[in-house]
């Protein structure tokens, strides 16, 4: 088993990445919004921890800053903002009825296998010890997208969007030991602005169509309808 060739810390990276993937699955299965926000916060925390471990393994010190940034942004600030929004929108006890739950979970498993297949040529190149985590990160990105597609509630869609960013961050850390700090800061800034804009949007949507169910956003379509 080649796993034995890796140091204990690198094995920890694998375990943390697998747990982050598990949290993505858990997000797909959750019905309560508050629990979803908590799961998303935990995913952010796991990623920050993972970044710290990779920083220790690869001796890249700017990754520590990245880890702290992720912790502050993804594990604390954005979940807090989403919590505040949920309270203001009075969605705390909201429980969504999941449509086609079994199909969604099967699609999720299928997406994990698909991501693995896509990245397989890269994984075979053996260029970096944590390359296998690239498959997991792509899977987390695709599961975030599935979450956005499968949910009707806007807050759930936003969490899906944010968890996609989590997957991308994991890819950057695992494949490349972190992008240059400038880029990381830019991406973090974009994510923060996006989160703020989402928050503003919820209120606009609710004002205009009186609900936060995006299935009701149907006025613009290519079908013929009476004007």
């Amino acid at each position, binding site marked *: 088993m080649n796993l034995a060739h890796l140091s204990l810390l690198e094995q920890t990276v694998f375990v943390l990445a697998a747990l982050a993937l598990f949290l993505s699955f858990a997000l797909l299965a959750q019905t309560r919004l508050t629990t979803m926000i908590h799961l998303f916060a935990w995913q952010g925390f796991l990623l920050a921890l993972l970044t710290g471990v990779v920083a220790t393994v690869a001796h890249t010190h700017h990754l520590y800053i990245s880890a702290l940034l992720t912790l502050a942004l993804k594990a604390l600030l954005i979940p807090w903002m989403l919590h505040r929004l949920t309270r203001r929108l009075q969605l705390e006890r909201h429980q969504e009825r999941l449509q086609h739950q079994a199909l969604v979970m099967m699609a999720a498993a299928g997406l994990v296998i698909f991501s693995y297949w896509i990245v397989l040529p890269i994984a075979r*190149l053996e*260029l970096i010890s944590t390359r296998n985590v690239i498959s997991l990160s792509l899977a987390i990105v695709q599961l975030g*997208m599935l979450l956005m597609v499968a949910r009707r509630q806007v807050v759930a869609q936003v969490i899906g969007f944010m968890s996609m960013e989590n997957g991308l961050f994991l*890819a950057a850390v695992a494949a*490349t030991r972190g992008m*240059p700090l400038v880029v990381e800061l830019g991406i973090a800034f974009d994510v923060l602005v996006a989160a703020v804009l989402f928050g503003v949007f919820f209120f606009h949507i609710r004002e205009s169509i009186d609900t936060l169910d995006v299935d009701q956003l149907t006025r613009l379509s290519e079908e013929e309808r009476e004007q």
Partner: protein
Amino acid sequence: MNALYATLILPAAGGLLLAVVRNLTLAGWLNLGLTVATFAASLLLALQVLGEGPLYSDSLLVDPFNIYLLVLTCFVGMTTAIFSRPYMAHVCRQGSCSQRRMRLYHSMFQAFMFTMLLALSTNNLGVLWVAVEGATLATVMLVSLYRTPEAVEAAWKYFILCGVGIAQALFGTVLVYFAAQHVVGSPEQGLNWTTLYMHAVELSPTVMSIAFVFLLVGYGTKVGLVPLHQWLPDAHSEGPTPMSAVLSGLLLNVALYAVVRLKMLTDGALVQTAHPHLAGHLLMGFGLLSFLVAGLFLHRQRDIKRMFSYSSVEHMGLATFAFGIGGPLATFGALLHMLVHSLTKSAIFVTVGHATHIAGTQSIEHIRGLIRTQPAVGWGLLFGVAAIAGFPPFGVFASEFLVLTATMQSWPWLTPSLLIGLGIAFAGLFRHLHPMVYGPVPQGQQPVRVNMLPVAVHLLLVLWIGLAIPAFLAGWLDQAVRLITGEGLL
């Protein structure tokens, strides 16, 4: 370099400044002034590049490919700002928009200009991504400016679809960085385009081809390639007209520019493999699909701005297709097409803004007899549509002709589909246009105060380029072609 810094700092500072200016008239003039200053700075930059050659630094890059796009962006931004000042004041008086939202509008307009200019002039692929995403974020609030249910829905769709697409592009960027790690000396240089281009052959072909697919899907969503175009008709039609003009005219170009830059890297990496033209073929496939599908959808539209946004999808598809063919002739055609399409489409949207002002609605069925009510608007719309449909002697005809010639040279069996597509789009546009311009005038339709000067300037430029393309422009484009394909046309 100073001109470049000025071009970037002016809109950035403007965005911050306009966030606090409360007086609407002052904001309008300030917006205009800033865009004029940015355009002047870009002209200075162009002169500098013409004289001394390309400018490179670690973070910024100005070479023949992006200099004309930079000047174009500043120019269209300026003319749109000229149009937007009285138009938005009128909209505000009508009550569709409050004072606070106008502040947001002006500030985001400048922020949008800044992010586009940054995307065009950066040398770092990561910063390119950040800037394109920033452009999306800046415009999202603007699309929903009028706060109607349709506008909010359009903005939400735009946000979500472009967000998802852009995330794929970020994954592609990470993969490019991954490939670069093993080739480039210092990790900091891993996202530097000039360094990557120099070492393109050494980049791993497997990683680069997978990366390119993700990047094409990601940035292609922003270009409006079918089937990722769903957000485009909604976003371009529901926002305020100046927004539609810059979105259609400028943002699509920036996204396509990103795609082409990355294609240059991928081509370099794949040159010694079994499929050296993978990137080109993908671009051709998506481009042709967008071109044909958009032409067909054009016919069904009932909203004038939606119709023209499908026309944007179609033209961007054509440009993508041409970039995919590769080779100096097609690339020259594509670059020329990006230029003239941008000028024509923004002119059309400005005219459409006036037309909807006259008719009081965006629905095609209810806009009639423009040429009788206000000849300036009527003729403007007529010439604009003629230009975009590819009538000679306008510039679009010249670029489309070049693309057709290139297709006949390398892919002769695809030429009929191109011709058919052009024909379908032509028919669709004119079928809708004819009653709008020449139909019976409805009761009580009055002429309004319009400023057709920007439109006239744009259309004259397009005409000039079509009739006798100026030597310096042709030289610029030829240098860009040389950079992209390795051989020049002229």
